[in-house]
């Protein structure tokens, strides 16, 4: 079985698994990192959204063989460490707005939100309503309005 090594939430990890197993299952089934959730397996629902080298990606749609040793994958579990705090400002905004209902999609929502704010900031601008409309992460509980409010508040603190 091929060996795969990469950085996960600040640590180098190694797994023995076939090249074509998608990263979501490497994280969840082999490494026990369960923050990223399964919702579709085809990069549609975005419940598994995590970061690779700081960008949002969906591990359900990436083969582990395509991850390089120096790639840094950050899941919701590793997000606070990226700002050296107990909680990332976006997580705090989520708490302040009491966003989560069932909570299943929320790790993905938060990871998507952080990347969205970073992209806007890289473009030298604030988050717009159009940006918020572009988020594809599904929340079947329908807490969309609080997600929008939390992203605006979290962006202020990032």
């Amino acid at each position, binding site marked *: 079985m091929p060996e795969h090594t990469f950085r996960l939430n600040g640590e180098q990890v190694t797994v023995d698994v076939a090249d074509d197993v998608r990263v979501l299952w490497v994280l969840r089934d082999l490494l026990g990192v369960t923050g990223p959730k399964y919702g579709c*397996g085809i990069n549609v*629902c975005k419940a598994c959204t995590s970061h690779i080298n700081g960008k949002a990606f969906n591990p359900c749609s990436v083969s582990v063989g395509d991850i390089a040793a120096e790639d840094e994958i950050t899941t919701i*579990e590793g997000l606070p460490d990226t700002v050296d705090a107990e909680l990332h400002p976006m997580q705090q905004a989520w708490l302040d707005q009491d966003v989560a*209902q069932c909570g299943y999609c929320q790790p993905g929502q938060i990871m998507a939100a952080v990347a969205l704010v970073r992209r806007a900031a890289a473009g030298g601008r604030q988050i717009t309503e159009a940006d918020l409309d572009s988020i594809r992460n599904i929340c079947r509980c329908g807490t969309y309005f609080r997600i*929008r409010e939390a992203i605006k508040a979290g962006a202020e603190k990032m």
Partner: protein
Amino acid sequence: MTTADRSSPPDSRPSESHAVGRRGFLGYVLAAPTLVAAADLNLRAPAAEAQGLPPVPSPAIAEITDLSDMLEYSAAPTANLITVTVNTDGTVSFELPRAEVGQGITTSTAMMIAEEMDVPVEDVHVTLADARPELVFNQITGGSGTTLSTYTPIRVAAAVARGRLLQAAAVELEQAVATLRLKQGVITDLLGNSIGIGELAAKAASVRTEEVPVQLKANENFSVIGTPHNRVDALTAVTGRKKFAMDLKIPGALPTMVCRPPTLNGKVGSVRNTDAVATMPGVTDVVAISTGVAVRAETFGQCIDAVRALEVDWKPGTAEGKSDASVLDELRAAEIPLVAPKGETSVEGDFTFFFRSNSALETNCAIADVRRDRAEIWSAQKNPIVTKETIAAEYGIPLNAVKVHVTEGGGSFGRKLFNDGAMEAAEISRKIGKPVKLMWHRADDSRQGRTHPMATSRVRVGVAGDSVLSYEQRHTSVFTDFSHGFGEIITASAAKLPVADASFSQTIFTYTQTMPYGFGATTQLLNETDRGFNTGSMRNIYSPDVTTARELIVDQLAATMGEDPYRFRQRFLQEERLKAVLDEVAEVGRWGRSMPENTAQGIAVHTEYRAAIATLVEIDCTPETVNRPIRDAVAGPRVTKVVCAVDIGLAVNPRGLEAQMMGGINDGIANALTSSLHLTDGYFLEASWDNYFYTRQWNSPPELEIIIMPPTTGKPGGAGELGVASAQAAVACAYARATGSVPTSFPINHGTLSFEPKPNVPPIPESPTDGLRHAQ
């Protein structure tokens, strides 16, 4: 505002005034090493029994099944008790016999206990109880009934605990109980001496079980109930630490999926390549089961590959050859005729509501370890007693050797009333003799999972001048499956019998459908047809569709009489609470304000669960909005603003109630505009969230205001499903006013197939590998 008098020892209780008498109840202190206070879960305030929850089955239904198991478990005097435990660290524990699936009941329950005990909400730890057959009907989570049914018993148990703690403190501090003050988990006497409830936990314990009379706190003294509180599980949710069934590590429970038939409920004929698939990487087991062919592997990714590789000959399903059009024909044939003559003086409408999926974001799933002599299940379930009893009966395992753990659920919307995932996991585990972690693929959940039944609703209203003489509504639906029963196997079994199930549906319809308007002679009748579909409730059962049909007709009645839709409703509504919420949304939402062409407001009301709700929406149907480009999506009309006013009698947690309304509103928008399943050749085409168009950010209202009305009845009503009906109806009414054309089928986009259907063989799509290209 906490004084000790209401929990003083019985002999020193003040004499009961009328008001106090209504707050007097009996609870228990149980024999235990630390303080355990209890109440009977069947205990309810007398007024709470008048309406609301679905009825328990009649003796006639109960007679047809074996009562002995139920009697054995419910016979013990303390069988129905729920218990509040005070721990030596000062925390309070409570096992809630309900399912938390996002509706916020662990938070509201912690608030109720904190209120009654005068301890911080953060110190109350609410977990979900395993299946407890002795609770009989009282471990079902549904019908927006949790708080309705637990509000009094939970507070009684908490009040018993508080009283015992004060008595123990009185001994410790050598002071009279009446002089003590309990606040934030600390008891203080007049001299300033204090003692924490943790220190008293053992001292307040009882060596024998005793009955204890208590007085509940008066509403005017509430400081927690009625005050917005954030969710108790919010931190675990935002850090990824919240554990759902598939996140649990159960030794040996490897990922498992099922290769499902191409048509609805098809059966396995033969499997052509079992051996080849069994040797695929990671695969440990391949076995045919009643619903398909199960595969177990090291990872779910390998399960997906194995499912896709299976070559199976299938037998027909239960909807073979059927389509939306053929089911509509069946419904038409089953419609009960309208009685009033049709004529110039009648206003009428005929509406169709297509199948909708109640799939949650967490798909059907369960961990099961079923052996010859024992079984253990972990799954989010709203009906765990049925699961436990069915597994015991099905596999001949003693009931007490079947453990069913209720995990936190990633949404339900009606789906988890059924135990489809748990029963399938149990079957697989039993067949292969190993633990399994079963997960449905999204395509499975959408195509083979349960649906809201397709329905038609015909309405005819007799009019004379500015009076309404009669209102007839004939709702005709594909059969709604109530075989989840109402909490335990006796009702579940009874509901599977054709006759009993029909009466269940009729009863539920009659109990839930009320007519808020004074429209003269009113009849609302249900008829159902076709048992070939996997149906169930979907965040409400009949109300959203019945209400949408009615409210569209109400707008037409107003137009016929030349009246404003709001003023017309105001004139005909019967209940003051409904009039109040209607006035509220009209005022806050600036009803009747001037709006641009192709945009409009809509307004609608609904009453259920001892609650009243009104919703006002604004919709944008301008071509530039309707045709805005969004990849793999239905853009369509945009609901730009929603104002909702809700009166549930007493909101335990206004912030949680607001969240429930928000969710209900987005469901209503989806039902009216975008969400449906398309039935073709015996199967549903939708296999993805980009096929099934639940409300997404680009469809959700950017402006939203939810007004929680001040307490009216002083008791909580139901909230979980409440928000959907009036939102769906208001969107439909707004759409009709914006476009000048009354929609007659829902969702309005159903006639356009907005996606390329995925193949149904193999039943699930391959996971893409191009994810890195889309990293952003």
